[in-house]
């Protein structure tokens, strides 16, 4: 698979405890089983625990070895897991101040992650909407949101996706232009908050059509995925599709619902045993759901890059 390109999937979700690390670990497990060289990167730097989920309780090296220059390249911090195709860059055993990563350090990690050559690189992001999290999320256009069907979690998803949206506008416009634009938008609609991106785009279209087209192109390049995690039997199975609909309609971003993952108490016991859930309980509904999610992600990826497919064929 030398000529294939690396797919980078950042996995975020805003709220803590929604199962980002669990989802990342399981997805990595499935991809590796399918024969893809898969790398998991734990960029939840302040509260890393992906290593525990994939069964490497004491990783020898971690990402902070790279930041503090104990090793020369990011590749050297990769540790193997019990699965032959699954690799990990752990965020464990960091210095205590690592959560507050300086801008240059963050950019250095981003640049170097993009250079690694694997089939799939999954980034496990932390909770919250700090710039660190968002910038890691925006490393690729194929970010995956994980949420639970609870108002708190859904609230955080919207918060995160809006943050990504505004960060993109920031990036395209640079800070100065953004401030003048936001000022202008506020002047025209004194009642509305700047939180309404439709309004911003609308105002910008009038002020600077050229930049506006550029921005629309940048926002149109996003192709997000949404996985609904920890679904109980009594929950509405349709929630994921509805969330996607709202986002597509009111933020004009592309987002696909890739599936629901059933809640299972045994996830807790698998984590307590520090074993991968799918290995311990391969014949549960949750495992089936995760497989289905993986399949959907891969087919969405194929559909998104038909040109690439042709080159390979």
């Amino acid at each position, binding site marked *: 698979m030398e000529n294939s390109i690396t797919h980078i999937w950042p996995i975020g979700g805003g709220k803590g405890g929604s199962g980002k690390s669990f989802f990342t670990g399981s997805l990595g497990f499935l991809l590796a089983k399918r024969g893809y060289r898969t790398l998991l990167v734990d960029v939840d730097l302040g509260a890393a625990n992906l290593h525990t989920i994939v069964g490497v309780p004491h990783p020898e090296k971690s990402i902070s070895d790279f930041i503090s220059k104990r090793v020369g390249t990011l590749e050297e911090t990769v540790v193997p897991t019990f699965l032959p195709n699954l690799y990990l860059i752990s965020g464990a055993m960091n210095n205590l101040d690592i959560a507050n990563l300086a801008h240059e350090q963050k950019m250095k990690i981003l640049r170097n992650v993009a250079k690694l050559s694997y089939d799939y690189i999954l980034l496990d992001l932390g909770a919250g909407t700090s710039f660190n999290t968002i910038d890691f999320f925006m490393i690729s256009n194929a970010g995956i949101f994980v949420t639970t*069907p*609870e*108002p708190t979690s*859904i*609230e955080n998803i*919207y*918060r995160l996706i809006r943050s990504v949206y505004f960060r993109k506008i920031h990036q395209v416009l640079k800070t100065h232009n953004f401030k003048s634009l936001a000022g202008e938008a506020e002047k025209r609609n004194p*009642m509305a*908050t700047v939180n309404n991106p*439709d309004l911003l785009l*609308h105002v910008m279209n009038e002020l600077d059509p050229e930049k506006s087209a550029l921005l629309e192109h940048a926002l149109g390049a996003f192709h997000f995925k949404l996985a609904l995690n920890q679904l109980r039997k009594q929950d*509405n199975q349709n*929630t994921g599709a*509805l*969330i996607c*609909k*709202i986002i597509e*309609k*009111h933020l*004009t971003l592309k987002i696909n619902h890739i599936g629901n993952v059933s809640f299972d108490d045994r996830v807790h016991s698998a984590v307590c045993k520090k074993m991968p859930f799918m290995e311990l309980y391969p014949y549960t509904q949750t495992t089936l759901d995760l497989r289905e999610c993986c399949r959907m992600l891969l087919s969405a990826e194929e559909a998104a890059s038909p040109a690439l497919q042709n080159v390979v064929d």
Partner: protein
Amino acid sequence: MKPLRQQNHYEALEVHPDALPLEIRRAYKKAFELYQQDSFASYSFFSEEERKEILSCIEQAYLTLINPESRAAYDRSLIALGLLEEGKRYRDKTHEPITIYDLKKTRVDSRSRVKRSDELKSRAAQNPAIHDILTQDALAGSDLQEVRMNLQVSLEEIAEKTNIRIDILRAIEKGNLDGLPPLVYLKGFLKSYVRYLELDENIIVNAYLKNIGRH
């Protein structure tokens, strides 16, 4: 996307201008489920004012479109503005007459059947190979196959016309004993097969059964 208050009622409910009242009702129900106060999916996405505005928009759209008179008036106003074409608007067809007799029913043309049987018979008479095979005392499946090939009839065609499963027909032609049905059925199938080829059924069926030792 246009802001909701600038959309027309059809756009607001995401239905086509010729949608049936049932579809409009359904679309409204769906939109209401999405935007109502207790909806999980839109929780925290909108401010209270935005939510109220959206709800009032879709409600107004629904109330206008579900009433035939107000819908017709609304359609006329859209047409006047050039936003809707006359031909694309909804018309209630339930009170218009519809045809109940379809006079153009296709009939099976019996003349072509006659022609077919004549043609098959003439082909069989003209081909000495067929004659040679059919005068044998015992006929193997491959002999039947050869006759059929010479008559230019496909196995699929036979399966379609006689309603015999194609795997059984294949088993017959291959002489594959395991794939054959019990003798009673086999006789019937063979008869249909031979009859479809317009050949003498009694002689051929007996010759075939003799060959596989089941007569």
